[in-house]
């Protein structure tokens, strides 16, 4: 039963984790808007979520084909969110700046706001799911 409850909430929990990770990446893009040579980074959210749900190792990480191989350090430390860091991409820039910085503040701000709303939407989904579970229990 506990396992079923876990499964019911797993999708939104994974999505929430990834949203938090993406929020972090976008915040660091905004923070480094004036750092020369900084390259803006992001994740492909839908792909990362798919990978997190299927437990697949992303293509950027090495597969462990023998027991002697060491696990990837990030995955060992941070679990699912660490797996997504293997999917980190660089943002394609439309107007490159002379100092090598690829942060487009408008894009970053828009993505940041969008991601925050998605995060809140995720919370709402979890909340309503919990409410209906409670309703089922209490009758």
């Amino acid at each position, binding site marked *: 039963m506990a396992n079923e409850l876990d499964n019911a909430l797993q999708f939104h929990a994974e999505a929430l984790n990834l949203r938090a990770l993406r929020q972090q990446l976008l*915040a*660091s893009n*905004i*923070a480094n808007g*004036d750092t020369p040579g900084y390259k803006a980074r992001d994740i492909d959210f839908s792909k990362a979520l798919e990978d997190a749900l299927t437990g697949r190792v992303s293509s950027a990480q090495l597969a462990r084909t023998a027991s002697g191989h060491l696990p990837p350090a990030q995955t060992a430390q941070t679990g699912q969110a660490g797996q997504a860091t293997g999917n980190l991409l660089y943002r394609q820039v439309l107007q490159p700046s002379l100092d090598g910085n690829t942060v487009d503040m408008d894009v970053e701000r828009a993505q940041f706001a969008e991601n925050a709303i998605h995060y809140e939407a995720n919370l709402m989904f979890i909340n309503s799911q919990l409410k209906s579970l409670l309703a089922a229990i209490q009758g």
Partner: protein
Amino acid sequence: MSLFNLFEIAGGALTAQSQRLNTVASNMANADSMTGPDGKPYRAKQVVFSSVPIAGGAASSVRVTGVTEDKSPFKQVYNPQHPLADKQGYVSLPNVNVVDEMVNMISASRSYQNNVEVMNTAKTLLLKTLQLGS
């Protein structure tokens, strides 16, 4: 909890941008300082930003790694009556470009505002997460 890292990231940026604002203020205030402690005119200062990875994540914050002095030559103004004039009658003025500094100031204050906004969003999201299930 990776949302807490947002405070570290944005906080680092706030510190860095305020340091940049400080430098701008110093440059503007000393735009006409013909002598400093070393007897030479004031040299414009610029901060150097570099990104620093934060612990346990792919994201990075920003830090000021140094303050460099502008090596460009001083402004020369012909004014033989001035007590600091050289043999040819020229006075050296600081190499501060006030227009550049104003632009720098606006850019720094906008970046600061951006990062405050990031912090506010992080706070809202965390509070909403705390109320989960209530």
